[in-house]
């Protein structure tokens, strides 16, 4: 940028001198090419400056919506945000995923224990080894040894979601089915 600045300063200085001394002005008598160059420069710079507006939003004070009553929290919406975070196939967020899986597991163990009328330990074993459900996706969610079915992995790849997300949804569907049956 420095050479450009030097050229700019020089140009302004020459311009000022030309304005003061007509002799200099007549010496550099602008040809058509020079005028065109000046015009092009003007347009280019002008468009560049005007373009600065494109990405800038107007900074207006937002007074909010005092007319609306303070919104209530919907139970589970914070969980949905966490689920959305783990839905992306990007690596990381292991702790989030583990915490969430533990939470779902607790509900699943409870549901299985009630459905099969067995001890929580037996239900936990069934959940961990995937025998608690016929749905291979829901089973794979808790069972770290079995893989997700190929169709899920393909679908996850195409849609840009993680396998985990599919497993979580399948597990929740399965818990609902079991609870519905038990009720």
């Amino acid at each position: 940028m420095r050479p450009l600045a030097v050229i700019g300063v020089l140009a302004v200085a020459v311009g000022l001198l030309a304005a003061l001394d007509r002799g200099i002005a007549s010496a550099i008598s602008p040809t058509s090419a020079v005028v065109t160059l000046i015009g092009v420069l003007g347009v280019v710079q002008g468009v560049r400056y005007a373009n600065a507006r494109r990405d800038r939003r107007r900074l207006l004070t937002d007074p909010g919506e005092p007319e609306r009553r303070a919104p209530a929290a919907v139970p589970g919406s914070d969980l949905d945000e966490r689920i959305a975070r783990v839905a992306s196939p990007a690596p990381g967020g292991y702790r989030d995923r583990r915490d969430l899986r533990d939470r779902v597991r607790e509900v699943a163990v409870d549901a299985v224990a009630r459905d099969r009328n067995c001890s929580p330990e037996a239900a936990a074993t069934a959940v961990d080894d995937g025998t608690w459900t016929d749905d291979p996706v829901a089973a794979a969610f808790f069972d770290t040894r079995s893989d997700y079915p190929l169709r899920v992995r393909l679908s996850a790849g195409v849609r840009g979601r993680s396998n985990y997300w599919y497993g979580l949804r399948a597990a929740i569907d399965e818990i609902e089915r079991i609870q519905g049956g038990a009720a």
Partner: protein
Amino acid sequence: MSDPSGAAVASEPEDSDSAGGEARSARREEAADSTAGGEADAAAADSASAAESTNTPTDRERRREVATDRWLGIAGAALALVGLGVLVRQSPLVLAGAVGVGYAVYARAGDAPTPALAVIRSVSDEAPAPGDEVHVTVRAENVGETALPDLRLVDGVPPGLAVVDGPARVATALRPGAAVTFEYTVRAARGDHEWEPLTAITRDAAGARERSTTLDAPTAIACTPELAAGGNLPLRGLTTVHHGRVPTDVGGAGVEFHATREYRRGDPLKRIDWNRRARTGELSTVELREERAATVVLLVDARESAYAAADPDAETAVEASVAAAGQAFSALLDGGDRVGIAALSPLDCWLPPGSGTVHAARGRETLATDPALAPTPSGERFYRSLWLRRFRRRLPADAQVLFFTPLVDDTAATLARRIDAHGHLVTVLSPDPTTAETAGQRLTTFERRGRLRSLRSAGIRALEWGDDSFPVAVAAATRRWSR
């Protein structure tokens, strides 16, 4: 202009008056002597606060001044136009570009004025009933020396109230001495509602700079619902020594059969089982179930997590809990029981158990306006063990607890078990705020159901109600419960 709220939505009556100086003095006279009335505008004149109208500006707090970037790029556009004019040898284009330069200079000049406004807010009813419409009138007068070419006023409606008619804001221009009045209507909801400061946003004539200021005009309404009786509330057998209506497992005087025992000298004749005497020749005495009064503390969960609802615009579980607690309160008082109120909240709320009409009024007041049970969360931190220690210290030894909680987290369930473990019979009454649309919401629903189940298996009575009303749910549950 890309101003979304349009030009002046409401303009003050004198705006059409061309004699600015006269209008100004007339307005000032009117303000100084409100009894003169005259051409004072109706909204300001009929409000009680009009008498307080002065020319002193309302306390204000300057918050920020920013460049709005409204004219950003105008210099570039002008330069491009000049360049184009040079390029195509068209002097009119160069001249048009020069006009753009003028705009660029206009945008640079000027500063967003600091408003000196005298704000008066008046409400049509300071103690409305829930659901009533309250009309709010806000009048702002420019008592400063500078004109406000672009003024937006946004009122600080309390977060617990919803505006049902008209926006609570106005956009206008005010010269010195001029005033603007705007009105809107809010629907009253339970609680003490205090207005937040009014926000004034001023801009310079070009709209290039903007200043945001808050103006303090304290206004409050208190909305206290009537207590409606919620039918017969099932209480548990732990009671006081006073006679009342809760059936106990204690034999003695009463109306319901409890047991028979051997006759002891001094037993009243009418309690002797004469049939048995005729059959076997033995004397025995019938014991009846004693009915005693109970001491009950209504505990309302008002932690931040309890401000939950199935829909962001719906009433929160705290509102449902408070309404149900109100019904329980009057039903229990009517039955002769001693009732107290407490809140599971970061703020302290405690009404010791009592009875009588004064106590009823106090209970109504507590449920309606105690800050701990406010319609919006207080934002303070809740310390569970501290709270429990204080609550236990206050709780009478023979008191049972009706615990109103949406059970959206483990804390409420744990507390219910701990209070129960300390020898106070607990009944959990739970409004259901869950919904089952997304995965997270479904998981929350399962977890809440699990909590209800585990409470029941721990021997704590638990009742939930969703769409059906609290008394209906109580009636349905009472049939199920054994004593």
